[in-house]
């Protein structure tokens, strides 16, 4: 801005003196010196006040009005203020543009986003989140999100404050809509919540599970018929000698198929729910004794089976499921260990919880197979599978049973030395007192296949 050299402080002072001088001259002329000076100063003061009034008026309505055309110090003030105002407007526009850009980009996001403060109240959400969660832009800021999305699991997820895993819920029971939430904490306790509509995926998964369950159920009846006739045939006296071998083989294979189908059914039952099993106390020592007896009976003493019980504690769990899991592990060891090998069933307790392990002296498993071992129908050696007669689902069943008991399966193996399959149960699953066995409170050793 160009500065008028006369319009500085000194000039203003001189101006007042000039006005006073003119007043004095006029006063002398009419014979009242002091009245003249006072009158001139009063006029000057009135002019300044009028300028101040204009200035304030303009400040108040500076967006609609042009700046007043005042000279002197007032002009300085006006131009200074309007410069500040312009600069502020510029910054405001820039931030506003940035904000709009941000809002538009988040609105186009395919996933819902909700920002929550430390008290889990809604700070902000995008359009998709509003659509998925039924939030309203006008009223819902500052409301606790768990108050609007009142599914108990969701409140628990927010409360837990640990967001390494996502949460899948159906916000309205009885409706198929399924949402997946993933929290991401930021700042001082705030939370970014990503919401995705996974209805389609959930439906596909249910369809797949239903299909497996239905297919295995439907396969069972024809298989029973085939197996029944084969049995009658193989027992028949009049069977020609050259058919005896094929019929025996057919019988063996139909038995194997029955085993696969019933394992599939069991697996789909296990998969139907993720809920933790409560169950009842199980006497592990007695269970292992039964397992050992069954194992020895089944493979006709080909292996040396020993049981080692190192703790009196029992286990809280579903008797049938735990029996099935432990039997699958023991049975696997027997299948893959050559005759004369040693199999050890061991139960022990330490500060981490209870542990059950099956150790064998079999050929071992090379490390690249270990991570995939619990997949369905995964075979380390596809050629060998046929003669052992397994369904290929045993370890998948074990894994699911353990999952529903909050336990973990760990496999250690060294090629040529043998393998160890260990189940690690959390401390909460242990029963301190040894359980008094009453009647049939145990497992039925007959339910193995």
């Amino acid at each position, binding site marked *: 801005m160009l500065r008028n050299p006369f319009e500085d402080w000194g000039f203003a002072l001189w101006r007042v003196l000039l006005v006073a001088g003119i007043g004095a001259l006029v006063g002398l002329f009419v014979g009242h010196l002091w009245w003249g000076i006072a009158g001139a100063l009063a006029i000057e003061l009135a002019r300044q006040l009028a300028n101040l009034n204009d200035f304030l008026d303009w400040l108040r309505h500076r967006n609609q009005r042009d700046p007043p055309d005042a000279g002197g110090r007032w002009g300085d003030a006006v131009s200074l203020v309007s410069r500040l105002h312009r600069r502020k407007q510029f910054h405001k526009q820039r931030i506003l543009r940035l904000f709009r850009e941000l809002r538009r980009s988040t609105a186009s996001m395919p996933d819902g986003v909700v920002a929550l403060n430390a*008290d889990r109240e809604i700070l902000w959400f995008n359009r998709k989140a509003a659509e998925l969660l039924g939030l*309203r832009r006008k*009223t*819902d*800021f*500052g*409301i*606790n999100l*768990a*108050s*609007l999305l*009142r*599914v*108990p699991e969701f*409140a628990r997820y927010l409360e837990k404050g640990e967001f390494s895993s996502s949460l899948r819920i159906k916000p*309205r*029971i*009885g409706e198929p809509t399924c949402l997946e939430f993933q929290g991401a904490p930021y700042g001082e306790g705030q939370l970014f919540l990503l919401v995705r509509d996974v209805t389609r995926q959930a439906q596909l998964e249910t369809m797949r599970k239903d299909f497996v369950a239905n297919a295995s159920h439907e396969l069972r009846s024809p298989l029973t018929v085939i197996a029944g006739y084969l049995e009658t045939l193989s027992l028949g006296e009049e069977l020609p000698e050259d058919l005896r071998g094929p019929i025996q083989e057919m019988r063996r294979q139909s038995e194997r198929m029955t085993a696969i189908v019933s394992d599939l059914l069991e697996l789909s039952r296990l998969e139907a729910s993720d809920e933790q099993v409560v169950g009842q106390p199980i006497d592990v020592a007695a269970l292992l004794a039964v397992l050992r007896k069954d194992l020895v009976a089944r493979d006709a003493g080909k292996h040396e089976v020993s049981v080692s019980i190192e703790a009196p504690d029992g286990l809280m769990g579903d008797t049938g499921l735990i029996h099935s899991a432990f039997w699958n592990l023991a049975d696997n060891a027997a299948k893959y260990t050559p005759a004369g090998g040693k199999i050890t069933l061991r139960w022990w307790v330490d500060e981490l919880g209870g542990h059950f392990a099956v150790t064998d002296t079999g050929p071992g498993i090379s490390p690249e197979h270990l991570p995939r071992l619990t997949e369905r129908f995964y075979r380390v050696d596809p050629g060998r599978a046929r003669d052992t007669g397994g369904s290929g689902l045993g370890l998948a069943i074990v894994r699911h049973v353990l999952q529903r008991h909050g336990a973990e399966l760990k496999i250690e193996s060294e090629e040529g030395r043998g393998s160890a399959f260990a189940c690690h149960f959390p401390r909460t699953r242990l029963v301190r007192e040894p359980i008094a066995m009453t009647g049939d409170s145990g497992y039925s050793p007959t339910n193995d296949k």
Partner: protein
Amino acid sequence: MDTAELSQHISRRFNEDLERVRSQVLNMGGFVEQQLAKAVSALVEGDSTLGETVARDDFEVNRMEVSIDEECSRILATRAPAASDLRLIVAILKAITDLERMGDECEKIGYIASRLATQERPVNKYREIKHLGRVVQNMVHDSLDAFARMDAEAALRVARQDRLVDEEYEAIQRQSITFMMEDPRNIRRALDVMWVVRAIERIGDHAKNICEYVIFMVHGKDIRHVRLEDVEAELAQRGTKN
């Protein structure tokens, strides 16, 4: 009273207390909603385990009621709230009683569902109960939404739906009477079904009560035992005045 007003409180702690107890109420409401949905689906699907689960889990609702009740007494004793805060506490105290009763009705439905699951299901597969259940579930959901948002208009809308539920209840009652007259062997089941329908209808009434508390909370006006049309007219009048 809206949330902005709530947050203007001098005492931050007090405000936090109020907010906490309010979200506890809605937590409890969420649980009751789930119980209701489970109970109805246990009956319609003939799932006896689910019915038993619902009946067993009712203790959770009672526990929540007691804990919120204590919290409210504590706030009343130590903070001596006034005006809108007092209205909030009073409304909460009343709402949890209604929620607890809803829980009891769900327990009842759960019991009956687990008993009926062993019997043969009727031809229409309890379609009318499913429908009534859906209407009441929506009512409960919307009334709790209105409570969370302090939305008196939504509350009034929900309260008006109660009439629909009553009509539906009448219709099912007539239908059941026909069943019973057709074949006396149906009587036992029809009576059980009537119990369930009655319970669902009662839950609708409790949802309506909650809506009334919301209006009481927002406008400080007691609308119990007043015709809804009058309430509407008065609220509209207030709206134009403001």
